[in-house]
C-alpha cells in the first residue's frame, strides 16, 4: 500500500508501508539499517505487536509522467483491472529506502487466550473461520495459542480441484494410523481451496485431515463457506457444534450450528439477534460453557429422570392394587388427590432440581475445564441410566404398596377396634409416596439451598395441610364425600406414624447404600474435587494428576514420532517465521485507505487532550 506525494519543493516521493517480507524484497541494494530493523521486528513480534515496515523512494518526474498514463489506463481497463493495477504498482514500487518499522498493539479481547486454552483442556476442538488473509489468520492463531510453536502446520493453498485432492490424499497417507487421533498438528486452509475441498470427492479426506489436527484455521472464507463447514461437522462427524461470532457475516454459521453464540458489541447486533445465546465478550464463553452449560445439562438430566421416577412410582401402585381388586380399575386414591400430585404436591422438587441444583461449584468448574468432559459423553443421561431409574421406581412402588398392605392386613387399625377402608389404605400409601419421592429429590440434589429445603419439606407439609382441609369439605362443598373423616382417622392411627418412620427409610435405604458404595468404589473426579473443597484443600494437584493419566502412552509416543518425521517441514517453516503480524489492509473494504488519509487536514495542528 503506497502513496505518491509531491513535496513542497517539487520532488515526487513514493511512501510505502507493508509487511516486512514484501518491503524487503523491494529495497535498493544495501541499506544501513536492514539488519537492525529485522532485529527490531522480531522483538516486536515476540511482544505480540502488529508490525509494519515503512520505506520511501524518490521518483523522477518523467518516469512518473509515463507511469501516470500507464496507471490511468490500468485503472480504467475493463478486463483484468486488478492484475493490471498490480503490474503498474510493481513498476513503481522499487528501489525503496527503508525508513523503519512500526509496531501497533492490536490486542485480542481480554481473556481470549485463556478461553481457548480452557476449551482445549475440556477437549473441545476449536476451529477459526475468518475472512482475513492467511498471514493474519496464522498470526492470530499463534497469538491466541491455538497453534503453539512446537506444532506442525499444514498449509493447503491450491488453485484447482486436482491438486487439492492430491494434496489432501498425501496428507491422509502421511498421517497413516494417526488419522482422526490427537496430533500436534495444525491445519491452515484458505477459502479458494476450501471450495474444492468441500466438494463431494474431497470432502471425506478433508474431514479426516481436519479431525486429525489440534486446531484448524480457515482463512478468507465467505459467510456461505462458514455455514458449509459447520454443516459438514454437524452432519458428517455427528459432533455437537458451537459457533461463536460477532458480525453479520457470522450469522449463517451461528444458525447452522447446534449452539449459536453471538457476541454483541462493536460490530453491531446482527450476530446477537440470530444466536441462541448472546454474550458481550468472548471470554464469557468460559462461564457460558463450563458453568452454565454443564449445570444446565446436569439439571436437565436430573429433572427428566426424576419426573419419570415419581410418576412411575405412584401410578404403578394402582397396578399393584388392581391385583387385589380383581383388575376392575378401582383407583386406590381419591380422584383429586391423584390429580394434584404433579401440580401441587410434587411440583416443587423438580423446580428446585431444574433451577437451583449445582453439580459442582462455579469456581471449580472454571478452574478445571476438564470437569466439563463428563457432560460431553452422555455420562449422566443415557439409556442404561434411564432404565435403572425406572427399575428403581418399580422397586420403590412395590415396597410402598405391599409394606402398607401387610401392615394393615387384618384391618383393625385403632385402639377402639374399628376398621379402615380402601381409601384409608390409599391415603396412608399416598402420604408415604409423597414423603419418599420428595426425600429422593433431596438425595439427587448436590447443593441444598433454601429453595431446596422449601421445596422438599414444604411439599410434605403442604400435603398434610391439604389433606386436613380437604377432608372437611363435604358436605359444605359437594366434593370428596369419601374423604370425610379420613384425616382424623389416619392421623389418629398408630400404624400410620410407625409406618412413617419405617417405610420411607426402608425404601430409600437402597438408594443411600448405592450412593455411598458408588462414591467409595467408583469415585469420579468431580466428587473428589467436591470433597477436597469441603475440607478446604486445593484440588489442583489431584486434578492435574488425574488428567495427566489421560495422555496415554501411545499418545506420548506418537507425539515424538510426528515431530521427528516432519522436522524438515519445520525447518522450512522457521525460515518463513513471520515476525509479528502482517497488518493486512482490508482490500476492497468499505472505506478506502486513500479516502481515510484525505479526511484529515494535516496542515492543522492536532488537538491536544485525548
Amino acid at each position: 500500500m503506497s502513496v505518491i506525494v509531491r513535496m513542497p519543493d517539487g520532488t515526487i516521493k513514493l511512501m510505502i508501508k507493508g509487511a516486512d517480507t514484501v518491503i524487503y524484497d523491494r529495497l535498493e541494494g544495501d541499506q544501513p539499517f536492514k539488519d537492525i530493523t529485522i532485529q527490531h521486528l522480531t522483538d516486536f513480534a515476540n511482544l505480540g505487536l502488529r508490525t509494519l515496515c515503512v520505506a520511501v523512494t524518490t521518483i523522477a518526474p518523467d518516469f512518473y509522467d509515463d507511469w501516470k498514463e500507464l496507471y490511468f489506463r490500468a485503472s480504467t481497463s475493463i478486463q483484468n483491472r486488478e492484475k493490471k493495477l498490480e503490474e503498474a504498482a510493481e513498476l513503481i514500487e522499487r528501489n525503496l529506502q527503508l525508513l523503519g518499522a512500526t509496531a501497533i498493539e492490536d490486542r485480542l479481547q481480554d481473556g481470549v487466550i485463556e478461553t481457548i486454552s480452557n476449551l482445549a483442556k475440556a477437549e473441545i476442538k476449536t476451529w477459526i473461520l475468518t475472512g482475513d488473509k492467511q498471514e493474519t489468520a496464522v498470526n492470530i492463531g499463534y497469538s491466541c495459542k491455538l497453534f503453539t510453536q512446537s506444532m506442525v502446520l499444514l498449509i493447503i493453498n491450491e488453485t484447482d480441484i486436482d491438486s487439492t485432492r492430491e494434496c489432501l490424499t498425501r496428507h491422509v497417507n502421511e498421517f497413516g494410523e494417526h488419522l482422526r487421533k490427537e496430533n500436534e498438528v495444525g491445519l491452515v486452509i484458505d477459502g479458494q481451496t476450501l471450495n474444492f475441498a468441500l466438494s463431494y470427492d474431497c470432502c471425506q479426506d478433508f474431514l479426516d485431515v481436519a479431525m486429525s489436527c489440534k486446531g484448524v484455521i480457515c482463512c478468507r472464507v465467505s459467510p456461505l463457506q462458514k455455514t458449509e463447514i459447520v454443516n459438514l461437522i454437524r452432519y458428517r462427524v455427528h459432533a455437537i457444534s458451537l459457533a461463536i461470532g460477532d458480525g453479520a457475516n457470522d450469522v449463517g454459521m451461528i444458525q447452522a450450528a447446534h449452539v449459536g453464540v453471538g457476541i454483541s458489541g462493536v460490530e453491531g447486533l446482527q450476530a446477537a439477534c440470530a444466536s441462541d445465546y448472546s454474550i458481550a465478550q468472548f471470554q464469557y464463553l468460559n462461564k457460558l460453557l463450563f458453568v452454565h452449560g454443564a449445570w444446565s445439562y446436569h439439571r436437565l438430566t436430573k429433572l427428566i429422570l426424576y419426573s419419570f421416577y415419581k410418576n412411575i412410582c405412584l401410578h404403578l401402585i394402582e397396578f399393584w392394587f388392581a391385583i387385589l381388586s380383581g383388575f376392575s380399575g378401582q383407583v386406590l386414591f381419591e380422584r383429586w388427590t391423584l390429580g394434584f400430585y404433579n401440580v401441587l404436591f410434587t411440583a416443587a422438587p423438580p423446580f428446585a432440581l431444574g433451577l437451583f441444583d449445582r453439580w459442582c461449584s462455579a469456581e471449580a468448574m472454571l478452574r478445571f475445564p476438564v470437569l466439563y468432559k463428563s457432560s460431553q459423553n452422555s455420562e449422566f443421561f443415557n439409556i442404561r441410566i434411564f432404565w435403572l431409574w425406572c427399575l428403581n421406581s418399580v422397586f420403590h412402588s412395590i415396597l410402598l404398596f405391599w409394606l402398607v398392605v401387610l401392615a394393615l392386613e387384618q384391618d383393625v387399625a385403632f385402639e377402639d377396634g374399628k376398621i379402615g377402608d380402601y381409601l384409608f389404605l390409599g391415603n396412608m400409601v399416598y402420604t408415604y409416596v409423597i414423603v419418599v419421592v420428595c426425600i429422593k429429590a433431596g438425595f439427587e440434589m448436590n447443593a441444598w439451598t433454601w429453595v431446596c429445603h422449601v421445596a422438599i419439606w414444604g411439599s410434605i407439609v403442604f400435603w398434610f395441610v391439604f389433606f386436613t382441609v380437604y377432608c372437611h369439605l363435604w358436605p359444605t362443598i359437594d366434593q370428596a364425600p369419601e374423604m370425610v373423616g379420613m384425616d382424623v382417622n389416619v392421623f389418629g392411627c398408630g400404624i400410620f406414624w410407625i409406618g412413617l418412620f419405617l417405610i420411607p427409610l426402608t425404601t430409600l435405604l437402597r438408594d443411600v447404600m448405592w450412593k455411598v458404595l458408588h462414591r467409595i468404589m467408583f469415585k469420579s473426579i468431580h466428587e473428589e474435587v467436591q470433597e477436597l473443597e469441603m475440607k478446604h484443600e486445593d484440588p489442583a494437584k489431584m486434578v492435574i494428576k488425574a488428567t495427566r493419566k489421560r495422555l496415554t502412552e501411545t499418545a506420548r509416543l506418537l507425539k515424538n514420532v510426528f515431530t521427528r518425521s516432519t522436522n524438515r517441514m519445520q525447518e522450512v517453516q522457521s525460515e518463513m517465521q513471520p515476525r509479528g503480524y502482517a497488518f493486512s489492509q482490508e482490500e476492497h473494504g468499505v472505506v478506502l485507505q486513500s479516502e481515510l488519509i484525505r479526511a484529515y487536514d494535516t496542515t492543522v495542528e492536532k488537538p491536544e487532550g485525548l
Partner: protein
Amino acid sequence: MASDDEQSESRRPQDTKFKQQRLPAWQPVLTATNVLPFMFAIGLAFIPLGVAFLITSNQVQEIMVDYTHCKSQDDPSLTCAEYLANSNNTGGSCFCEVTFTLPTNFTAPVFIYYSLTNYYQNHRRYVKSRDNDQLRGKKISSSDCQDPFLKVENYSGTGRDYTYAPCGAIANSFFNDTLKIYLNDSEVKLLNTGIAWSTDRSTKYKNPPGDDFAKAFNNTLKPRNWQKPVYDLDPSNVHNTGYENEDLMVWMRTAALPTFRKLYRRVDTSNGFQGSLPAGNYTLRVTYQYPTVQFNGGKRMVISTVSWLGGKNPFLGIAYLVVGSLCIVIGFVFLIIHLKIGKSASTLSSEISSRTPY
C-alpha cells in the same frame, strides 16, 4: 446520552444471590464416614422398637371361627349354605350352631368381627354404587346409583317409580347374618353401637327429617336382597335405625382387600363379665341368611382384643427388627470398606507434594 445510560443501567441483571445462582448451599456428601453413624443409630433404635411392637402384637388375643359350612339345626343333613342355595329358600333363614373354646381370658375391651373371604368390596363398580346425598337424608329418590340397584319402575302397577332406600350395590349386599355368643347357655351381652367411625355418625349418615320414620321413607322400597326395610333395622334404638344404623355404616365403608373383617359388636363388659371374657367353651349361634358359597366366599367370626397398635399383626414388629438388623449389617460393611479402600485413597492424595514430578 443520559437516557441511554439510564436504559443501559436498568437492563443490567440484578446482582443478587438468588438471581446470580450464588445461593449458599449445604452440600450433602454421602461418604461412608457420614453415613456410618446414622446406620448404627437407626439400627440401635429400631431393634428395641421392633421387639416392643412384637411383644405388643403377641399380647393381643384372637380367635377365628369359620362357620361357612355349618350344619342346619332343623335338618342336620344339610348345611345352611346348601339350604340357602335351594331356590325355594331364597331370602329365608337357617339356624346353625358352632362351638369353640377360648384358651385364655380375653381382657377387656373385646371385639367381635365378621370376616369374609374372596369378597371384592374394592371392585370399581361396586365402590361407586352408592348415593351419599340419599344417605345424608337430603333426598329420597336418587340419581347416583346405577340400575338395577336404583329403582323399580311402575311398581305394582301404580305407574310410579319407587327408589330403593338405600340404593346401590353396596347397600344391597348388606351383611345380614346374626351372630350370638353363649357361654354355657347364658348369652354374652353385645353392644351394637360405637362400632362405626364417629365422623360417619356425625356427618355422613342422617335419616330424612320427620318423626314418623315409615312416613319419611314413603314411596321407597327396601333393597332387593334385604329382609326388612331400612327403618326397621334396629327397632329397639331410635338412634340406631334407618340410615343411622351403625352396622350399615360399617358395611358401607368398603374394605381394601378381598379378605377383610368388619367390626360387628363390642362385648359388654360392664356387668357379668367384668374385665374380661373368661376362658371356656362357647357356642356361636348363627342366623344364617347371607349366601356366599356360590362365589367360594367364606364367612368367619373373629373375637379379638386390641392394643394401641390395633389387632394382632406381628408384621410391624418383624419389619422393624429386620430393618434394624439390616442397618447394623450395612454399617459394619461400610466400616470395613471404609477402612480398607477409603484409607488407601486418602494416603494416595496426601503423598502428592510439591516435589512430585509431573
